[in-house]
């Protein structure tokens, strides 16, 4: 085996894209955070399957605003992806614009979600469903807020000219986290908004 190693091959140095430690680290982080949401949704289904209460207590949830909000969040992910591609193509200004748009869409999601919370007739302590609803969406909101800070910092770093087509690992690592936050919302959305329609 020692002979098989090619010694004169040039190797990339430092944090190079998907070969950087950070990429692997955030993948592992996503696995553990994904598990956290898995256990949250397990908690929901476990308690929902055992409850004798009317479920959800206020009747079937309206899908219009949450549906629109889901689309907003997914669109935000698309712009993060586009921002990353623009760096690779050396279009830094487009990258900045795209990242800024992604950030604004993320903020829209937060605002709409806060509005959704405010029109609920119950809170965390009113009943079991309320505890579940606000804890699960609250956990997700926390992840969105962290993700937004990440996007904001990436925007700043890109604006400071830290990245070019050779070194931009931070953008794909932060971007991956944002994609995770968006994808996990689909599971939260399916659980809290769609699954009540099935039974």
């Amino acid at each position, binding site marked *: *085996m*020692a*002979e*098989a*190693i090619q*010694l*004169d*091959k*040039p*190797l*990339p*140095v*430092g*944090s*190079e894209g998907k*070969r*950087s*430690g950070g990429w*692997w*680290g955030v993948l*592992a*982080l996503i*696995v*553990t*955070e994904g*598990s*956290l949401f*898995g*256990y*949250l949704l*397990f*908690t929901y289904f*476990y*308690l929902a399957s*055992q*409850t*004798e*209460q009317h479920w959800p207590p206020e009747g079937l949830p309206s899908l219009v605003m949450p549906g629109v909000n889901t689309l907003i969040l997914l669109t935000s992910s698309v712009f993060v992806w586009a921002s990353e591609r623009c760096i690779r193509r050396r279009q830094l200004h487009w990258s900045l614009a795209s990242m800024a748009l992604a950030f604004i869409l993320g903020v829209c999601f937060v605002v709409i979600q806060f509005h959704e919370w405010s029109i609920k007739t119950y809170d*965390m*302590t009113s*009943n*079991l469903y309320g*505890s*579940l609803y606000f*804890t699960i969406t609250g956990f997700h909101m926390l992840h969105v807020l962290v993700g937004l*800070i990440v996007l904001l*910092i990436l925007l700043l*770093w890109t604006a400071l*000219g*830290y*990245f*070019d087509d*050779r*070194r*931009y*690992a*931070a953008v794909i690592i932060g971007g991956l986290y944002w994609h995770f936050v968006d994808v996990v919302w689909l599971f939260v959305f399916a659980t809290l908004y769609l699954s009540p329609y099935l039974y």
Partner: protein
Amino acid sequence: MTDAAESSPDLNFTRVPEVGCAPIGSAAEIRLAQLWESAPGWRGWLSTVDHKEIGLRYLVTAFIFLLMGGIEALIMRVQLASPNQTLLTPEQYSQLFTMHGVTMIFLYSLPILSGFSNYLWPLMLGSRDMAFPRLNALSYWIFLFAGIFLYSSFPLGEAPNAGWFNYVPFSGLEYNTGPNIDVYALGMVLLGISTTVGAINFVVTLFRMRAPGMSIERVPILVWGTLTASVANIFAIPSVSLAFFLLWLDRQVGTHFFDVVNGGKPLLWQHLFWMFGHPWVYAVVLPAMGIVSDALPTFCRRPLVGYSAVALSTMATMLLGFGVWIHHMFATGLPTLALSFFGAASMVISIPSAVAVFAWIATIWLGRPVFNTPFLFFAGFVLLFVIGGLSGVMTAAVPLDFQLNETYFIVAHLHYVLLGINVFPVIGGIYYWFPKFFGRMMNETLGKWSFWVMFIGFNLGFFPMHVAGLLGMPRRIYTYAPNMGWSTVNMVTSVGSFVFAAGILIFLVNIVVSLKRGVLAAPNPWDAPTLEWATPSPPPAYNFAVIPFIASRHPLWEDRLDEGAGRSSLERGYLLMEGRETIGTTPLDAIPDIILKMPEDSYTPFFVGLFSALAFTGLLLHWGGFTVLMALACSLSLIVWMWPRTALVQRAPYIKQDTGAVHG
């Protein structure tokens, strides 16, 4: 040292890594030492990211927790030595057995193994550090702060008191109004962060940081064990963190997850706890089994029998371990179908365990055993593992478990498993790697004494607990009446526990004596096969002067084993000395893939750890503003930490510089 790195920032984005030799004392070796050594004094102490330093801190801290948990146990054994004792009040007893469990399970058993793995992994894998050195430091600091946090209410007589698995509704606000359970809940969430980031570090290190040629089938079994445990932790820790967080919400915010009156379900707690708890049991034993699989063959003078079988059975144990949590809940009234399935799964798990046991026995059988102290601990471990395993299979049978549940039989079983499979290999491992850690051998005479006293004390103490359980003695009772027929077994157990403690004391004396007067150790005093023994004892800050090329599973035994065609190259390899550097390789075949820039020492991990611990303290004390402030400080520290740095080639250079590299 920082100057050395900053003054020659390597702005090449690709280069061919230089191959060469760097014997001790050469210019290259001196430059490496300058690059990697931490600053002296408190600055280096707070900012170091050296995996060896962090590993030793883990070992020492976890061992101190072992001693604290041990003293708690001894106090309980005095209370239980004879009937109707009044040394402890029931509440004091509850807090003692809870803290004993919390300490041993969470603050000793995994952290001590993390200590071994932190110290040994890069040395075994032929790397200069872990994948994330600063994350490694953070993991330690949070572990330390979480340990202090969990003990903070102990002196006030308000320690956690509902048992280490903390069942609701007893741990709910209705029955437990003090701060006891809140300390436990928040402390466990904090500790979970430490364990998680540590686990991520191990997983990425395994996949990225092996020396060229160390393909996946050539890594030591300890690495397999810790990898398996870490992967399991990544999946399992969120479950317990969530359970404790929901409990805290129930208690402090007024949610209803476990609140029976409002539709909450106490069994939800048990599911979430044991979905974590059972994989955790394997997480605290598989790396210890790895210690034995790696060290025992050295004393049998032959490679481990059935390397692949042992590696695969390690993984299989954990995989099955995720599907047996219900066996902690047989007596909760779950449907018979579930009980049958989980009972069967629990029995199946004995198959991979038996594979490992037979591999160790075969290794001893086919080898030429050298009966020194580490060997005794490892051989003793095999025996205790078999006893603990057998009582485990017994309780996997649902009807028998109905009978034995919540009795001292379970206490006997879990102590045979946890002391047998964790403490004995750990002490054996310390005897084995002590020369590598400190450059001195441990005393053999004292070593043999410590083994035999511990071994006899352990069996004298814990075997009678089986009998106490069969006689119907429930666990967690603070005293018992003289006419129950439990007096003799309890007295024997108490005597045994003190004999065992005496064995630990001899071990500690041996440590102190050997640190001062032990025989100086050569790089490979045991004539062992694995890579960590190719470095000096103790190893220099940079671990390997050159990154070696590996050609077999036993790089130091190649001449006599004649495995495979090639020979490992240990003297000649990648120099990598333009700043702190090491090689990154592909996950399976370990083909060089990237030159990794490693971070300098940094204070940020300490501050992130400190601020997060303070934020949790704020939550505990209901200091809203303080908590927010600390969370902000924590976030700012993280941003400083993550700021892309030219020295690590994390960002594009905006000043074009001379790219001529400086070579030592």
